[in-house]
Every structure is written in structure tokens, then in C-alpha cells.
């Protein structure tokens, strides 16, 4: 197998930086682990469990201009921004399996049946995801309960595993991964070391995504009491969506003066009370419990059925950030339990 030694890791990073490659990885800011671009190898710090921000920031930034406009006498001139060449080649070094899976989920949304988002696509194509398998998880991690693992490869281009010797075993997952290794071959060497054992977070026994999907696909459960009961305390602050690796909703807004300005694409959140409001003023999700239901269903029903992708990757960030202690895992348990109670619903043929 290929190895990347400690020393080489740093050299490799420096080399990439020297070549104007944008290297993004876990760094420590104010004692906090965050994913951020680095200007030197020494800045990287793989010791932490997981960055506070989702790594999606680097493919789907919180706010970005999508076009410039100029209002003329009786017409409007528009100019695209972004597109090819705007973004540097990027290596997301030391992403976690859950975040990588999140990127896969995002891709399934933004690159969908030919309806591609050029801005996303451009970045995506220039980005190589180098995942580092977790050595440990924490109280909030639950990747194992959504069918992932600390060393899962979904969404990764390259997977690194720590070895007992403290080096990294390199396992290309995609061509992109291969290309990367090939391009920087000098930093990788053949060798064989045994992996450092990975401690996966405990599986939530009582939770089963299959059951959840089944239960959710029964429209009659739409009005179930469980939603209000669980989400009544939710304040709709939307922090969960902002840190979620798979949340992708955005909003378009025009900013500027009377005669020119820019149209920007900004993150939006389904937890905001007017997220779904119609122009008529009618709001189909006027209650917070409904909005939270939407988020839960989005993760465990819409994604799987519509994009056949994972809506939740078990990174546990939403649990960590929630101000009132709303716990998605707790809900997964609940719903699984309910699913036990009433078996799969068979949609009757429409006549």
C-alpha cells in the first residue's frame, strides 16, 4: 500500500501551497477546531474530533454573488460572475468521513439531471477531498447509525488511515484521488504498516434509518403528535442548518444602488418561520414543529427517495449547536420506535 509519512505530509502541503493550491484542513482557532484554508503545513491539526463548521463552506459558501446587473434607460444589463477559472485547485485535507459523505449529498442536489449549478460544479471539480479516518468519536457522533463509519469512503477522493507508526496509509477512492497521488508522487512511498485501531461511535441500537424511512413515507404520520411533542421547544434559530454538511437551501437577493448592483446567493434555512411562506401570505409551515418535521423528513425521506443520497451523515453538529438541546438522534430513536408499533404502510394503487 502507499504511505504518506509525517514528514512528507508537511512537505507535501508546503509543496502544494507553493503551487498555489488552496489547502483547507482542520486548524485550531481560539482553541476551537475549524476547517479553514492554511498558509503553512504547521497550521494543520488533526488531533481534534471534528471541525465546528461543515466543510461544505468550501463548495457552497454562505454568500456569493451570482451576477452583476446594471439598470439602463429602458433595459437591464446582466453579467455573470464565477464560472470556470474563478476558483483555485483545492485540497480538503483531513476532512472526516461524515463531511465527505455530506459533499456527496450536496453534489447529488446541485448536479442533478443536467440541472447543474455552475458555481458549485466549478468548485467541486477543482476540489479533491482527502479524508482522514477518525481515531475516535464523541458523545454527539452517530455516523454508524446512518450507515456510515469513521473510515467510510463515500464522497472522498482519497482516504488516509493513521498507522501505528504515526504515518498515513493512503487509499485512493476515485480517479481524482489517483490523479492527486500521481501529481505529487514524490511525497508518497510504498510500504506496509498496520493501521491504528479505529474506535467507531456506538451505534444507536434503537434507531434504524430503514424503519424511519418507512414510517415517514406514510402520509398519515404527517400530522403525528410526535412532531410537536419533540420540537415544541425549537426556536427556529436555524443554527443546525448552518452547520449541517448536507443542508443546501439558499435564497437569492439583489443588493446595490438604484442603477447597479449584484444578485447574491445566500444560505437560507428551513427553520426560519417564513421559509416556506407564499407570496399570498399563506404559510404552509406556520408552526415550528412543522418546520422541524420538514427538516427531519428532508434528511431521512426526501434525500434518500429523491436524490438517493444520505440526508444525514451523523456528524452530530446540529446536536452540538442546539441552544435548547434538540437532539436529532433522540428523534431517530422515537420514530424507529413508532415504526415498530405500526408496520410498513402499503400505498394502495390509485384508482
Amino acid at each position, binding site marked *: 500500500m502507499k504511505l504518506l509519512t509525517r514528514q512528507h505530509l508537511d512537505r507535501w502541503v508546503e509543496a502544494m501551497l507553493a503551487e498555489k493550491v488552496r489547502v483547507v484542513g482542520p486548524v485550531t*482557532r*481560539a*482553541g*476551537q*477546531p*475549524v*476547517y*479553514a*484554508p492554511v498558509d503553512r503545513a504547521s497550521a494543520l491539526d488533526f488531533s481534534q*474530533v471534528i*471541525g*465546528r*463548521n461543515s466543510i461544505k*463552506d*468550501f*463548495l*457552497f*459558501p*454562505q*454568500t*456569493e454573488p451570482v451576477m452583476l446587473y446594471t439598470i439602463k434607460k429602458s433595459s437591464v444589463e446582466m453579467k455573470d460572475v464565477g464560472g470556470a477559472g474563478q*476558483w483555485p485547485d483545492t485540497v480538503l485535507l483531513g476532512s472526516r468521513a461524515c463531511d465527505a459523505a455530506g459533499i456527496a449529498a450536496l453534489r447529488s442536489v446541485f448536479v442533478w439531471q443536467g440541472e447543474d449549478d455552475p458555481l458549485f460544479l466549478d468548485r467541486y471539480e477543482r476540489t479533491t477531498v482527502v479524508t482522514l479516518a477518525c481515531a475516535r468519536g*464523541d*458523545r*454527539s457522533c452517530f455516523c454508524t447509525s446512518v450507515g456510515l463509519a469513521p473510515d467510510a469512503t463515500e464522497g472522498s477522493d482519497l482516504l488516509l488511515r493513521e498507522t501505528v507508526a504515526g504515518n498515513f496509509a493512503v487509499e485512493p477512492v476515485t480517479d481524482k484521488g489517483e490523479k492527486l497521488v500521481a501529481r505529487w508522487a514524490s511525497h508518497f512511498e510504498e510500504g506496509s504498516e498496520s493501521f491504528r485501531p479505529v474506535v467507531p461511535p456506538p451505534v444507536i441500537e434503537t434507531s434504524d434509518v430503514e424503519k424511519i424511512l418507512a414510517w415517514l413515507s406514510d402520509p398519515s404520520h404527517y400530522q403525528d403528535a410526535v412532531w*410537536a411533542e419533540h420540537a*415544541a*421547544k425549537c*426556536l*427556529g*434559530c*436555524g*443554527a443546525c442548518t*448552518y*452547520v449541517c454538511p448536507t443542508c443546501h437551501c439558499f*435564497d437569492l*437577493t*439583489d*443588493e446595490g*444602488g438604484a442603477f447597479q448592483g449584484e444578485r*447574491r446567493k*445566500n*444560505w437560507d*434555512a428551513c427553520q426560519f*418561520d*417564513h421559509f416556506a411562506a407564499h407570496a399570498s401570505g399563506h404559510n404552509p409551515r*406556520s*408552526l*415550528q*414543529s412543522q418546520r422541524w418535521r420538514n427538516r427531519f423528513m428532508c434528511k431521512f425521506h426526501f434525500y434518500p427517495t429523491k436524490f438517493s443520497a444520505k440526508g444525514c451523515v451523523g456528524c452530530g453538529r446540529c*446536536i*452540538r*449547536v*442546539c*441552544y*435548547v*438541546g434538540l*437532539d436529532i*438522534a*433522540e428523534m431517530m430513536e422515537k420514530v424507529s420506535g413508532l415504526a415498530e408499533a405500526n408496520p410498513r404502510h402499503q400505498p394502495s394503487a390509485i384508482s
Partner: protein
Amino acid sequence: MSWEPKIVAFVCNWCTYAGADLAGVTRTQYRPNVRLIRVPCTGRVDPLFIIKAFEQGADGVLISGCHPGDCHYISGNLHAKRRWIFFKGLTDFVGIEPERIQYAWVSASEANKWAKMVDQATETIRGLGPFTKYHALKGTGTAANGGACPLLVWSEAWQPGIPDEVPLPEDAPFVPALREKARELLEKGEVKVVIGYGWAKRQRRIVPVFITEPGDVSRLVFNPLCVNNLSVYLPRKQGDIAKLGKPAIVAKGCDIKTITVLLQEEQIGRDGIVILGVSCSGVIYRQELWAGKAAPDLLAPKCIGCDVQTPRLADHVVGEPVARSVEQQGPSEVQRQIEALDRKSPGERWDFWAEHFDRCIKCYACSQVCPLCYCDRCITEKNNPQWVETSAHPQGNFSWNLVRAIHLAGRCTYCGECDRVCPANIPLNLINRKLAVVSEEAFDYRSGYDEKAHPPMVVYHPDDKENFIR
């Protein structure tokens, strides 16, 4: 061509606009740098105008109307005066040079005063140079430039909840009494739900709980981790809770201050709720930091100098009256920081806030958790016109934070929830507290103590004192 200051003037139709007309009639010459925007009355001028003007490239703003007592609309200018006193307190605090926003009374006959004012303003602002640091805010900033992340810091501890090794705090002695009262209320049907504190299921932390069955009252607890201000669940906005029926709410003295404002502004009816007051000797600001005791440095800022340990206005009070503990002696850290900032130069203050607002990710968590931000549709959600830019670039962040602050001026009861929830750790307590101080000093008004009073921003007193209106 060399730079010329760009100044916008919002003037009232009856006095200053006419005064400027007179300047014309008398051919009184003055600098050409001012562009007038006519409003019926200075009372019409919203701080949003000023913020927007700066965003649109103004280097300075003049606001002028009839002298107090001469208002064409009885008291419009006096209302304006109050608003300005607050707004000036704010803009000074965030480091906008005082000269950038100038206020004056100019009557229809004071052509010369108007001309002089324009000339002086033009020159002072010329002296300051262009307001680039505001204009440039757009398009810079971490969130804006393509996904370098803002520094998200929920608390010093990354994990929610209390580590397993740390012993949990004990219930307050009156908890049985509290549960008993809750049971009684539910059984008698006086209320349909009791909003209180309880332990989370999977985590070792306190979360809001909603007890609807007399049998579940045992879930209710109270201890130093019960920092949340539950009154946020009372306004109409919280449809889920409203649907449950008449609530009883477990409230600390400080929470009741918020409830008081909600009563003032008729967001709830006094007989629509039952207040279960709990006497409180201080709570931990960030419960995950609980290390076995309520150490002073862990106390919530609102607890320092607290004077409502024993709740007023409550229907039922449980717990013995407690006095202010040693830990709660002021001045609080927040107070010290405010004073430190006040001592700094506007420039330094500006840098301080620019650095903080830069991190804002416009998640609006601050307003979502604020019991007093109950607007069904927040101004940020109104886009005709879009006064507050929704993008998380610093300019939008600045205007958002200024608007949030001014909308809470004189109302905020300093519960600190916004500061606590902010994912980017923007020290909102400083701003809120500062405006509370302004309100106390200018109007001798403390929010949250009198449910009969009106918020100071919408009333006025003929001789409100100020020292900045020319």
C-alpha cells in the same frame, strides 16, 4: 477631480426645508455637498435611513427639523429627539465618528443657521475624509470571500451537556413545592401546560420542558443550570405552545422582567398566563462549563448586580427570598468592558466591532431566541424595500446589528440569550447593556420593572436632556 464629501440631509418639510428655501430666497451661499431628502416631520426619520445612506456611499448625514415646541405635528420632533438620543448612543458606541451624523433644529426663518450648518458639516466631514471604512465593508469579510469559514464558537466547550465525570448540581430545595404547584394547576385545569426546566433525555444538560400531564411534573427541576429565559415561548409566534392552551411558566426574576415588557406591549395578557416565580441566587451562563459549583466567573452577566432574586409580579413564588450574593456584586465584566470601550477612540471602537460583526453569519439566532423579537415578520424578511441586506458580508452584518440593537433599545431586559446563542460569539451583551445605560441616564428608565409604563422609545418628555442637537 478631488474628493468631495457626500452628505445626505433628512429635513422636515415645515421648518428646515423652508429654512433652506429661505436661504435660497436670500441668496445665502453655502457648500454644495448636501443632498436633501424631504420628510413631513423629523419624527418620520427612521435610523434605517441613516444606515442606508452610509451604505449608499454617504460620508455624512444631517438631520434637522423644527425647534422643540414648534413642531407642525405637536410632538413629532420630540419623539425624534428621543430616538436620536438612543441612536447616537449606539452609533457612538460602535465607533461611527459623531461628526458623521449631525442633528440640528433649524426653523423656517433660520436660513443662516442652515447655511452655517451645511458649511460646518461639510468641513468637519471633509476633515474626517471619506467614510470608506463603511462603504468598503461590502464584499470584504470572511464569510463573503468564497467560504473561508467564520469562527464558530458556541462556547469554550465544544460538547453540549456536562462531562460524565462532573457531578450534576442538586435541585433547589423548593423544587418539590414547585412540582406540587404545577400539579395543582394542571389538575385544577387552571393551565394546560407548564413551561419549565428539565433534564434532557440523551444529554446531561437542562432543556426547556412542557408539562401537560399532572403525572409528569416530576420532570420539573430548578438548579443553577436553568439559565434559559423561557418567556421566549410566550408570544403568539410560538404557535406550537399556544396550541397547547393557557400556560404556566417557571420564571426567574430576570425572566419576569422580559414578561413585563411583553405585557407592556400587549403580546400577552396578564390573565392569559400563570407565572410561577422561583427565587434565584444566580445561574451559570454556559451550562456545559459547570464544574460542580456556581463560581463567580461562570455566572451569567445578568446575575451580576441582579436586584430581582425574589421575583415580583408572579402569581405564585416558590423558594425563600434570597439576597444578592457576594458573587453577584457588580460591576460586571460587561460593565467593565463597556467602560473600557467608552474610553477608547471612535476609531478603536469601530475596529473592535468591525472585527466582531465580520464574523456574523446572519443566522438570526439572536433574534430568534429573543423573547422581545416577536415580530411576525422581521424587517429583514421585508424586501420592498430591503432595508437590511441579508447577505452575511460585513456591511449587511453592520446594518443588521445596528437595527437589532435600536429595535431593542429601551426594551431589552438584558437576559443575554442573544449573546449566549450567537454561533459567532459576537458580544451582543455589550451593545444591549450600553443602550440600557443610555436609557437609564437619559430617561431614568429601566426596562422590565413596570408593566404599566410605555417603552421609552415611543413616548417623550418635553424637556428630555441632550447635548448634541445644535
